[in-house]
C-alpha cells in the first residue's frame, strides 16, 4: 500500500511537468487550432538561454522573468515572421513548418551549447519538503508554479479585455474581426504566451531531467497526451490531464512488469490513441461541431 501511495505522489510530481507542457500546448491550440510540434524544442531553447544567463552569474529570480519575457517576444516574432505569410496554407504546410522549426531549434541548441548534459539548479532547493516527506522541495515548487500559472491564465481570460478578445478571436474569428478585434494580433499574442509558458515548463523540468537538446521530445509527447486527455480546449483540463498522465505512467511502470522503469513512451501513444477514439473532446473539452 505504501508503495502504491508513494508511486501516486511521485506520479503527481512528474505530472506537474506534463501539466505545464500541456498548458502550453493548449494555449497554442486555442490561438491557431494547431498542435505545435516544435513546442518542446522552443521550451528547450528557452531553458538553454536561462542556463546561459545563470552561467553569466545573474541571480535566478532575475533570470526567470527575463527568460519568460525573451520567450514571449520570441514566440510572438515566430508567428509574425514565419506563420503570418502562410495563414491560409493547408494543414500539411503548417505541420511541415512545425517540423522545420523543430529541426532548427534542436540543431542550433546543439550547435551553440553542444550536446553534453548540463545541470540546472532548482530555485526551490534540493531534498525532501520536510523531514521524511515523500515529495521533494523542487517537486512541490513545480506543482505550485503550475497551479499559479493556471490561476493567472484563468484570471487573464476571465477578467481582462485582451483575454476576452483572444477568446473571441479563437472561437469566431470573423465575428471578432467585425467588432474590431485584431485577430492576427491575438494569434501572435497566443504564440507569445504559449512560448512563455513553455519557457516556465522548461526551466522547471531542467533540474529534474538535465538539460540537453533532446530532453523535450518524450516530455512533449506526454504533454500532448495530457492535453488530449484533458481536452484541447480547456486549460484546466490540460493541467488535470497532465497530472493523470504522470500518475498513470508511474503506476504502469511499477505494476506492469513488461514496461519497467524506462520504457514508458508506448503508454503515451496508447493513451493518445485511446482518448482520441473514445472521447475525442477529452475530459473537460468542448465538442466541436462542424457545419458542412
Amino acid at each position, binding site marked *: 500500500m505504501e508503495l502504491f501511495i508513494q508511486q501516486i505522489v511521485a506520479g503527481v510530481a512528474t505530472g506537474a511537468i506534463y501539466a505545464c507542457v500541456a498548458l502550453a500546448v493548449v494555449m497554442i491550440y486555442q490561438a491557431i487550432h494547431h498542435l505545435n510540434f516544435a513546442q518542446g524544442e522552443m521550451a528547450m531553447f528557452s531553458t538553454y538561454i536561462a542556463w546561459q544567463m545563470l552561467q553569466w552569474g545573474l541571480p535566478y529570480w532575475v533570470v526567470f522573468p527575463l527568460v519568460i519575457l525573451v520567450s514571449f517576444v520570441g514566440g510572438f516574432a515566430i508567428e509574425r515572421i514565419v506563420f503570418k505569410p502562410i495563414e491560409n496554407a493547408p*494543414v*500539411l504546410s503548417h*505541420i511541415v*513548418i512545425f517540423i522545420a*522549426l523543430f529541426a*532548427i531549434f534542436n540543431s542550433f541548441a546543439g*550547435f551553440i551549447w553542444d550536446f553534453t548534459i548540463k545541470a540546472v539548479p532548482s530555485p526551490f532547493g534540493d531534498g525532501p519538503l520536510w523531514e521524511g516527506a515523500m515529495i521533494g522541495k523542487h517537486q512541490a515548487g513545480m506543482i505550485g508554479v503550475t497551479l499559479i500559472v493556471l490561476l493567472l491564465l484563468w484570471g487573464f481570460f476571465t477578467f481582462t479585455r485582451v483575454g476576452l478578445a483572444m477568446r473571441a478571436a479563437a472561437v469566431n474569428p470573423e465575428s471578432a474581426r467585425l467588432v474590431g478585434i485584431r485577430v492576427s494580433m491575438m494569434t501572435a499574442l497566443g504564440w507569445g504566451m504559449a512560448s512563455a509558458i513553455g519557457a516556465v515548463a522548461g526551466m522547471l523540468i531542467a533540474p529534474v531531467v538535465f538539460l540537453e537538446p533532446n530532453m523535450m521530445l518524450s516530455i512533449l509527447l506526454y504533454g500532448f497526451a495530457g492535453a488530449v486527455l484533458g481536452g484541447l480546449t480547456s486549460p484546466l483540463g490540460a493541467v488535470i490531464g497532465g497530472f493523470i498522465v504522470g500518475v498513470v505512467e508511474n503506476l504502469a511502470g511499477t505494476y506492469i512488469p513488461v514496461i519497467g522503469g524506462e520504457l*514508458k513512451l*508506448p503508454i503515451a501513444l496508447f493513451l*493518445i490513441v485511446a482518448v482520441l477514439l473514445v472521447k475525442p473532446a477529452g475530459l473537460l473539452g468542448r465538442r466541436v461541431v462542424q457545419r458542412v
Partner: protein
Amino acid sequence: MAMSDETMTGGASGSAKAAPVPKGRAAAAGGKSTLGQAVFVILLLGALALPFIFKNFTIFQMTMLMVYAIAILGLNLLTGINGQFSLGHGAFYAVGAYTAAIMMENLGIGYVWTLPVAGILCFVVGFLFGLPALRLEGIYLALATFALAVATPQFLKLTPFEHWTGGVQGIVIIKPDAPFGLDAVLNADQWLYFFTLAVGLFLYWLARNLVRSRTGRALMAIRDNPIAARSMGVNTSVYKATAFGISAMFTGIAGCLGAIVIQFVAPDSFTFALSVAILVGLVIGGVGWLPGALLGAAFIVFIPNVAEEISKGLAGAFYGFFLIAVIYLAPQGAGGLLRALVAKLGR
C-alpha cells in the same frame, strides 16, 4: 479553406479541369508522356551504368537513395493521393527492417523471401493502425502518428521481444552475395544495387497503376472532398484504411531493403528523425507527384553531408530552413517546379 484545397492538390485538379476537353487533354498527356518516357529511359540507362563507373561507397549511397525513394513513394500514396498525414512512417520502416533481420539471422531464411513477408506484415500493421486513424483527421492524425514515431524505438527495446530483436544491441545482418554465378561479375554491393533497382521499378509501376486505377481515383476523391466521395458511393473507411496499409507496405519493403543494405538494425536507427526525413523527402519531391520520391530521396541522402561540411552540427538547421523555403516558394516541391518549367517550355 477552399483556396487551401486548391494549393494542396494543384497538380491533380489541374488535370481534372482539363477532363471536359478530351482532345486537348489527350494531346497534352501525349506530349507530356513522350517527354516523361524520354527522361525515364535516360535515367534508367544512367542507373544501369552507374555501378560499373563509381566506387562502392557511391553505389551504397545510390542504393540507399532508392530505398528512401521507395519509402517516400509509400508516404506519397498516403499523403499525396489520399490526403492523410503521417509523421510516423519511420515505424513501418522499422517493422520492415526488423522483419528482414529476424528472418535472415534468427530463422536463416533467404533475403529475397523477406520482402514479401515484410510487405504483407506491414500492410496488416498499417491497415490496423489505419482503422483507428479513420476517426482522426488533420492534426489529430498527425498527433497519433507523431506519438507512434516517438514511441517506436522504445517498442523495439521492450524486454519480451528481446530474444528476437536483440534489444538495444540490435541485429547484425550478413550481406548476401550475387546469385546464379553472377558473383563472378558483380560484387555484393553491385548486386544489391541492381536488386533494389528492380524492386524499386516494380513498386513504382505498381504505385503508378494504382493511382491510375478506379481505386486510385476513389482515393483522390476522398482527398479532395470526403463527403462528396461518400455520396458517390465510395466506401471511405475501407479505402482510407487500405491506403494506410498499402502505404505502410511500400515503406516496410523499403525498410526491409534498407536493413539488408546497411547490414544492421538497432532501435536507435528508427527514431523520430527517420520519420521526419521521410516527410522532408516527400515535401521536397512534391506531394502527390510520384517521381518526386527520387528527388526527395536524393535530398535526404546527400544534403545532410553537404550541410555537415559547411558547418558541423548544423544539418538540422539547414533541413529546417530549406523546408521553410520550399513551403514559401514552391509549395508543390520539385515536382511543382518541374511541371511549371515544362508548361513554360511547351508554350
